[in-house]
């Protein structure tokens, strides 16, 4: 059982173009900020939505908007008790695990 992204080749090219663009106009910190948005907000939410009967464009768009709301909400609460940076990575792990769990439940 794996988490996967459809059209990964095309999406990979798009991501490289986007990261290169931000590197060119805003430097490394701009590129890293965009990478953080894709990695933390979009990726876990995409894997969760991938378990439902949605088209790929719906999954991509909704993962951005849902991820930008859910991920920081969880990370904020972790940041109250443990270092914020560690909270970010724990949030990421929890959401990825949630995606796995939903996939597993749906398969049964």
């Amino acid at each position, binding site marked *: 059982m794996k988490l996967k992204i459809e059209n990964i080749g095309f999406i990979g090219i798009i991501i490289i173009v986007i990261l290169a663009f931000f590197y060119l106009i805003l430097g490394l910190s701009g590129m890293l900020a965009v990478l*953080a*948005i894709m990695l933390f907000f979009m990726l876990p939410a995409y894997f969760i939505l991938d378990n439902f009967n949605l088209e790929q464009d719906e999954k991509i768009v909704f993962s951005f*908007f849902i991820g*930008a709301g859910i991920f920081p909400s969880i990370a904020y609460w972790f*940041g109250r008790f443990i270092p914020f940076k560690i909270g970010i990575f724990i949030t990421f792990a929890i959401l990825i695990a949630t995606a796995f769990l939903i996939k597993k439940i749906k398969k049964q």
Partner: protein
Amino acid sequence: MQIKRNHIETGIFIAVYLFALYLWTLPFQDNQIPYGEFDAISHWEIADYIAQTDKTFNQLPGFLDFSYGDDNKFRPHTLWYPPPFHTAMAITSSFSGDRMVPIFLTNAIFATSILISLYFMIRKLYGFLPAILSSFILAFSMRDIFPYLWGQWPERFAYAFIPLILYCFYMYYTTYSKEGSKPIYLYMMFLLLAINVLIHPLVFFHSIVGLSILFIFLFIKNKKMPFNIKHIGISLLIFLVLFSIFPYQSGNVIVSFFQGGEDGKSASLSRLFHWGPNPDDFRGSVSADYFSFSKMHGLWTLPFLLIGLAILLIRRDNKDILMLAWLVSLYLILHRDLIGKATFLHRSLSGTAHIFVPITVIGALAIVSFVKLPQTYKSALKYGMAALLVGLALFYNLPAAYSTLNQAYDNPFIRLNPSQIEVSEWLLQNTNENQNVSIIGPPAEILQKVWWMASYSHRTSQFFEGFLKWKIYEENREEIVNYHLLNDYIVVDYSDIGLLQDKAIMEQWQLFEQDNLAKHKLLYNKGSIKVYKYEA
């Protein structure tokens, strides 16, 4: 990898979106120093504080409490906004190891995300061409650019949720039947609604009105009542869990909603015949241009907008009903002062382009269908019309958008200078968190700089000039000044006075420094800025 039509369309959208982001990031491409009005300062400092201290907080830190301690009406001294928006910016800042670019870039991406949601929804309903044209024209929307620059950051992002929320309900409603339905759309709708209220409550109320109108319109047309207790139960649970995740801030939303209701009672019924609020009511706080259709949208859009509106009203397909419901809901929101809810009325105007632009595009492209021609010629004519729209937007809308963004805060008196940043960093590292700092030097016209220095140093900052000049301190001025300064760190900042080339101000502060600070401990002296510790 085979190139598909979808790939080409996505590639074109990415190009348009990156072009928009190139424009919207112009204010900080060459000058990576924070900028903006008081609202922008508040948003930046919350995100920056979380990233820099590597912790989140319940009680506001001293420098935030000083300015915003009473803004949460439900639980004073806590955050007045729910924290996800600012925490999102803190995450990118923390990950990138930079205090400025990631926060401002994340905000730019959030503010332009209406281009993504609008493109997505219009493509699903009307196809690629209307979608890409809508997104392209919206990139130059002055009604979005102004509030973005003024600092209404969370609100810009919240508006991008409206088309998605309406789309989810539309999908749930139109696919609903007794045999089968797609409840995932209803769950996502409530999830997005909950996030919407966590991002900005004002826009959440707009989403609710939009949904209500859409439901009524669809019900009238289709005579269908989708009601499934399980779907509604799960959806409400999702919403309530998320809404209660930040109880103090959600409490503030509820208290603020029921408290604010006095300022709209005098609104006249004649307002019903005007689209937006009266610019005179906002004189001095909001530019009159912001209320002008021709200056914000361009008069060239008006005929196409009216044709588009007529097409929607005549055709009334379900997708047209969605667009009309969105438009009607915005009209109702813009007239809420008639029921006594006038708070931030002008801000709702900033959602206008999001619905006007796609209707304009629908109208323009529909003109082609009026002409009797063979299909091949019609296709050519349709792309010709699309090219005309692109040309008109580039000719009429792009120049204003470009010059506004390119010149935004392009003035040394508005952004901190390197010396002010350096001293702010020194204060951050060498003073304790609840320390008050009094800043002497920047004249009242650039008071904003003092706030940015407070923000950058995470220290409470008082603007000192007022204690010497303002009438309210007239009585016992000397005593007040001494009391105010006691135990403060005093920043004497000549860096901007030098630029002003006003000898009188320079001499006034030099004299003040000599008479009042000479006996106190000088801790810092760099780049025309000194820091004293004022002790008895």
